[in-house]
């Protein structure tokens, strides 16, 4: 079918000409790799493998496929949105503005609060944290989200480079799901052109908004994080101050005895030489036995 080959050729040519559509004046954090799009694979396969370890079972139940393209943006923005909201915290009641994170008193010994569990889930789909720790802290949030963004952009770029082929493959696979005997979509190419135009516009749009949106959110989160550190320090200083106050209050109670102590000590120190039961002049006689003492109040023996 030469006309079909011709169309494929035209499609590929147009695809290459369109390939630069993702170019935006934003820096890339690193090169895109083939593993990047794994962040947008159906996570249920990985979960199934982790739970059961039975590849045959999991492959049949959740084939290792990427998420449908139309779910990428929803998943990405939904995850970032959830992380940002977890970071900012929830209002305790609908009508009160103060947002609180976690529960219980602030820890004065821990370096940073724990991050949203979603951060760990995202991080484990990214290459740098593939085998990373189970616990992530608030300070890990920005690096993980930036890497997630890079992977998202890479995934979009990768798809845009072979967009018509990807769409062709997906549509072809979708057509195979039709019951046997039914004819394929008579407007197959028309459909591909429509999808191509739509997805191309969608990629362009996502490339334009994803990075500035996240960077603005991170700027905001950065200052909130900084102020919360300040708030935590203040609360910890307040607790220490209460301890200091109580210690000084005890000292003040003790200090109240000082004049009494001096009063008590003065008579002790005033023991006259003729009443101290000592032989002060080494003449063998003590106190009133000494010839120098006329009375107990005499100061010399």
């Amino acid at each position, binding site marked *: 079918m030469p006309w079909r080959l011709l169309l494929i050729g035209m499609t590929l040519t147009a695809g290459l000409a369109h*390939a630069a559509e993702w170019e935006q004046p934003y820096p890339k954090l690193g090169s895109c790799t083939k593993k990047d799009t794994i962040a947008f694979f159906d996570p249920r396969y*990985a979960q199934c493998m982790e739970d059961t370890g039975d590849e045959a079972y999991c492959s049949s139940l959740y084939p290792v496929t990427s998420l449908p393209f139309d779910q990428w943006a929803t998943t990405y*923005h939904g995850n970032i949105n959830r992380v940002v909201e977890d970071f*900012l915290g929830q209002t305790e009641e609908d009508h009160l503005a103060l947002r609180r994170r976690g529960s219980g008193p602030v820890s004065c010994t821990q370096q940073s609060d724990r991050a949203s569990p979603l951060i760990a889930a995202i991080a484990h789909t990214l290459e740098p944290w593939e085998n990373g720790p*189970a616990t992530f802290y608030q300070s890990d949030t920005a690096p993980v989200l930036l890497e997630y963004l890079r992977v998202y952009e890479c995934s979009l770029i990768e798809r845009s480079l072979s967009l018509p082929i990807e769409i062709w493959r997906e549509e072809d696979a979708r057509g195979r799901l039709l019951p046997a005997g039914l004819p394929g979509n008579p407007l197959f190419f028309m459909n591909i052109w429509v999808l191509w135009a739509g997805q191309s516009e969608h990629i362009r749009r996502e490339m334009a908004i994803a990075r500035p949106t996240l960077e603005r959110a991170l700027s905001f989160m950065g200052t909130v994080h900084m102020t919360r550190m300040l708030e935590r320090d203040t609360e910890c200083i307040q607790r220490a101050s209460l301890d200091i106050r109580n210690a000084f*209050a005890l000292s003040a109670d003790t200090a109240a005895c000082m*004049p009494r102590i001096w009063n008590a000590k003065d008579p002790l120190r005033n023991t006259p030489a003729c009443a101290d039961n000592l032989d002060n002049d080494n003449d063998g006689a003590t106190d009133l036995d000494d010839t120098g003492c006329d009375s107990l109040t005499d100061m010399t023996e």
Partner: protein
Amino acid sequence: MRRSSFISGIALALLLSFGAVPADSARAADLTLYMRLKTISEKQVLGDVEPDIAAYVQSLVQSQYDDTLALDDISVAARAPGAFQGRCGARGIQASKCADLERQIRRLVEREERVRKLGRDLFLTTGSYEVPLSESLGKFAAVSPPLGSLLTIWESGSDRAVNPDAFVHTTAAPLPDPDGKTEDAYTELKDALDALVEDAGGPKEDLSELAAAVARYRFGYTAVRSEGSCDAAIGGIGELSQLTQRWCALEDELHDVWNHLHASLTARPLPPDSSEVVFFPTWLFKDINVVVWATNRDVGIEWEIPLEPVLPWLMDDREYQTCMEENNDDEAYCSSRFPPVPIPGGALLNPPDPPPFATGVCGMPLGSRGFLCQPIEQHECAIALAPNGSSNATGTGLYLTSCKEPILQTPVRMSFAGPDVCGVGGWRMQTEPASEPDNPGVQTGLLPTQCSNCSVDIYCSSSCPEGGAYTDARDASGRIGICIPETIQGSTAIFQTLILHELVHAQQTCSNPREILTGDLNYCCSSEYQAYLVQCIAFAEDGILQDMQVTHQGKRINVTPELCAATLSTLSCSSLGQCSESPIPPAEMKQAMLEAVERSKSRLNLPVSCADAVNRMDTRSKAILASLPKACTPECRSEFENTIGNNLCFIGQCIEQSWEEERIVPGRMSLNVGDEAFPWDSCIGAEPAANTDLPASSLLMLPTLAFPPLPDYRPWDIANSTDIALCQLLGLPARTPPTLCAAEVSRQLSRPLSDPLDMMINLAASVEDQLDPAVELERMAPNVGTRYATSLYRTQLGALRRAFAEIFDGAAVMLEEISKTSFPEQACSRVDGTCPFLPSAP
């Protein structure tokens, strides 16, 4: 299941859960910070022309070209020029004119969008820095209230009396009856706010009116209300006129909320005093991104997340809106009769006037204490404003603060036997009342109790010594008379603080001869300065100092407690000389003080006579009277608020009393503390039973109480930081302007990539970078700003935190040493009167 797999399971469930969010949740998600930011990005990058801009351009086209275009046409002209040509032609306009129209519209839209984008970006930049710092009970963090609490834990009563930095007494109160009337009051307020973002067709996209209202009432509604009766029509015409507009219904609702909350405080067992600031929880209207803060003094609205600034006003549509309201939204009639008028731009506006004194953030209870709102202390100036050894800032630029002028050399009081710990001001409660209550008459029988060295008798007389208020010398029975005249230059309101002043003199002479007040110029100045400082701080607390009209070199100056005290102390010591170098004539300062006090007479319910002043004595004066008895005398009771400062006052006075009244070498009481009881005292060897360790005080590291450097406002440095960042990004050394760092295509060509497609893409990217490096700069500016702010915080708080840590260390050392105190078990054996080291006679 292993723990990690369990956690992963939960996390993956979270990851997956976004596939099926219900509609309500989806709507709620749109109200989150991230989604709001995403919407802004979409609008900036991809959206249609904003309605305001479209209407503005449409109106200009009408007036300049006499052609009527639809609002949609403006968007099409800006975004799809080809399509506009078709539309334009369909309206019967010549093709050449259509091309000209399209070009002019596109340029105009680009310019206005650029201004708006810049405004929003700058607002986001500053907002992300400022939003967590709120005076109210928090949104994302609440820093100010804990700081107030910290101050309460540390401060002593004496600090409050003599520290010129006014103490802001803060407390928190719950919302009264949150489900009933409180909710009703806030609901009505919400209705008034909704009216700003809704029209007949429901919610409108344009948030400009709400943004302007938030800017107007951000620092409270009372300052706006004090401008006069509300008239929504007032506002003037101009790009910034929305900043002075008023919304009467909104003001009324804010006032109702305040009334309701304030009324709840009167039901408290102890109603708040005039100096107390009571914070209420901040209310949230999440759907319009607005919070309502409230204190016992004011109520205001703020953005929860500041995303929308007040942008230049493009169309004056007030008459049109009024017409629509009055004519049941008859658009045809109103738009023909009262069409919105474009506000012409193009000319550089004069810079806005600086904000009036004590408005905005400087009108807030805590913010007004910041360095932006007042000149900084004289002893801090050298550190703050002279980084290069110069006391004067030079060059052009914005200066955020200034030194108090003139720089005063204030006298320092030295006592006979070391410092008098908490010797001035009241830090105790009354536990040892005088033998009889004081009255306005002379009471010779008002004698000191066994716990005090003196008693104070305040009496009114028309013939006080020296013609004014006068503190007598302590008589043989210990009574100190304080004579108050019938009036001071016709004023009786001044008596409230005058008694405070004289009571400080009573404190100074309670255990000392009166000569310390008048002995010589130094004695006089130092004693008077202390007394006036307490008085002037009381003025500041009562808002009188801020009202004092004093001019210097033709300009009204901000009178600080120190300037007030230093100037007036000369007045009381004029027979001996001049106390300070204050350029304000003392008599002028006194006159200004008397006038300001008289102006506050009814507001503060000040005394109407001397007898009234004595009978209704101020609480600050009562605290001084309560603090006159000796703290540590056996069988005398002391009671004080449990703060670190007050505890230290008590410990300090006990130590002082011990040294001054008790003799460590027994039975040898000397006349003065420092005197030797016997000529050989000084040659007696070290007490063998004494603790030979170094005294605890030698182990103390005095905290570094240097004022932290004030933050510099250096936009040039920030710009340089940005340049460096941009240049680093492109692998080049720093250059200014940053356009010099634009990516060079030749660099790409000299390092070809192996893949021709990548090479082509990189070259294209380089060209784009070169075409618009400002985009890079703009994108990074918020992050540079954030880092700059972080660095500023670190600089500011680092010094304070170090000082705090050293105070904690010092306190720990002292407490540890106190626990180690050992007393000798045997009596001293120096009773034989011999002196082994008696020097031989010459």
